[in-house]
């Protein structure tokens, strides 16, 4: 036992015996810290910090047992168990894993999407924005529930197929018509790209975020779910109960929008010059 501890401490002392080894050891600890912290925050966001305990125990057992030549089976099992538990965490939280991976490679993608070239003139886009604002305001006054997704880039086919393709020129009255409670398409989301209404009555993925306000209904959850998955998309929601206008972007919802704020955010998403300038300030 004494020999074990003697060897243990001499190994640690060896890691600090030369200046370059000290730097490497510090880098090693910092890299491990970053990995542990990222994993801990991932689990915290998913309200699963309890799982972290099992992961920590599994990793310590795996480290200790994998160094025991006398127990080769247990050593291998413990090592595999650790990796299986780690893999299980990422499978269990597939949506978050996908979102994180998508953000890793497309952190600036949504900004590129805002500078996209549309087939229509700037004037047409400004007219489209004013029509959207007008329709949203009108529906807010009448307490008509609405969910509008502004998608500057491609709209996923699966979502379009869940609704009805329209591909019509945008107008305030058409938007209001689609969300009229007696219309068959009023229950889903309307997708807008440029000055065209691409589809209506589309079903969106609901967010799994459990920390959201309980006041937010299915329509708001669908908007958050959609913008969590597609960074470039912007969702405008009109509450059926209160008429409050909310905007969701990149998985975050901001409530109580007025026409000026809505106009500003739409100009930004449409990549119009004035809005881009103000955004750069």
């Amino acid at each position, binding site marked *: 036992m004494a020999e074990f501890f003697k060897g243990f401490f001499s190994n640690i002392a060896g890691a600090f015996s030369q200046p370059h080894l000290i730097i490497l050891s510090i880098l*090693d600890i910092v890299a491990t*810290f970053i990995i542990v912290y990222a994993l801990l925050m991932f689990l915290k966001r998913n309200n699963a910090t309890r799982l972290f305990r099992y992961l920590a125990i599994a990793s310590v057992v795996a480290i200790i047992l994998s160094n025991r030549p006398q127990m080769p089976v247990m050593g291998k099992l413990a090592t595999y168990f650790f990796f299986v538990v780690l893999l299980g965490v990422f499978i269990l939280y597939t949506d978050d894993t996908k979102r994180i991976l998508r953000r890793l490679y497309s952190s600036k993608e949504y900004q590129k999407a805002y500078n996209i070239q549309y087939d229509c003139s700037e004037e047409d886009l400004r007219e489209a924005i004013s029509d959207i604002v007008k329709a949203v305001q009108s529906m807010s006054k009448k307490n008509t529930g609405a969910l509008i997704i502004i998608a500057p880039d491609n709209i996923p086919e699966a979502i379009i197929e869940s609704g009805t393709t329209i591909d019509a020129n945008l107008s305030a009255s058409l938007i209001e018509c689609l969300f009229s409670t007696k219309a068959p398409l009023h229950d889903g989301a309307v997708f807008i790209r440029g000055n065209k209404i691409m589809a209506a009555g589309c079903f969106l993925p609901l967010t799994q975020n459990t920390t959201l306000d309980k006041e937010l209904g299915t329509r708001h959850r669908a908007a958050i779910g959609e913008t969590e998955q597609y960074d470039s998309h912007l969702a405008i929601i009109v509450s059926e109960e209160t008429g409050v206008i909310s905007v969701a972007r990149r998985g975050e919802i901001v409530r109580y929008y007025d026409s000026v704020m809505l106009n500003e955010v739409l100009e930004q998403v449409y990549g119009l010059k004035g809005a881009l300038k103000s955004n750069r300030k």
Partner: protein
Amino acid sequence: MQSNKVSTKNTENSNNNSKFKKFLYNVFVKNIGYKLVSLAIAIFIWILIVGLGF
């Protein structure tokens, strides 16, 4: 003209300052408990692995 230039620079400086303050806050204050626990675990794992002679 001159005063305009100065005011722009001041605005840029204050923007940079607030960004720097936000960065410091994010690194040293935000989630400090989780960061300390992660650091302790990282050091523990490092000692365990190096001590056992991997």
